[in-house]
């Protein structure tokens, strides 16, 4: 069998399945008028690296962005967001040793949008983050973050810079080790 192209009726062997790189770990529906969503049992020893996506739903007012933190941690998050106001002038924002990583997704009245790469959250080592953000006609940027701690985490908290969100789906995928 020529991976990754299959034909109807093909038998999937262990070798074929072991070559699958991305697995859906968990799906979480966002409730109504929530300021944050904690997703438990998202990280484990099965995977070292993850991608979290958010789609659908809506923000109460728009013009806000998503944030992320790990477990019950409220400090030691560092981030940098480099952006332009949809032009060629590069500007940046960032913070050191704060409660969460900001600018990891869009929180708009038209929908919630995020794709957050999370590196080594379950390992007892610092956790890396890579994400992007778009805030309407204001700006678009890329965000890199780090949580400097030797703690192992199984959960994360997806929050907002302000306001509330309703609906939408959070999906957690693990990259096969």
């Amino acid at each position: 069998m020529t991976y990754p192209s299959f034909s109807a009726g093909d038998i999937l062997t262990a070798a074929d399945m072991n070559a699958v790189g991305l697995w859906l770990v968990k799906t979480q529906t966002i409730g109504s008028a929530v300021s944050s969503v904690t997703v438990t049992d998202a990280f484990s020893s099965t995977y070292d690296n993850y991608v979290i996506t958010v789609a659908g739903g809506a923000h109460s007012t728009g013009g806000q962005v998503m944030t992320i933190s790990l477990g019950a941690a409220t400090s030691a998050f560092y981030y940098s967001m480099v952006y332009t106001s949809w032009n060629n002038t590069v500007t940046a924002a960032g913070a050191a040793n704060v409660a969460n990583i900001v600018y990891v997704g869009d929180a708009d009245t038209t929908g919630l949008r995020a794709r957050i790469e999370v590196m080594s959250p379950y390992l007892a080592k610092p956790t890396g983050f890579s994400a992007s953000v778009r805030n309407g006609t204001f700006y678009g940027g890329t965000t890199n973050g780090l949580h400097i701690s030797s703690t192992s985490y199984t959960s994360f908290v997806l929050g907002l810079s302000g306001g509330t969100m309703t609906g939408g789906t959070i999906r957690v995928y693990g990259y096969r080790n």
Partner: protein
Amino acid sequence: MTPEEYKTLYPQDSVYIQVDDTERLMTDDEYEAWVDQCVYNINHPLP
């Protein structure tokens, strides 16, 4: 924006914290901290 103005927009009994499939209202301390953080973010927009 002031915290009082923000509380008018988002009364304490209208904002929830979600853990997996369970939602609950914020405690007084959680609500005050959330309002302060939101107001700070609104009053400090990107340059």
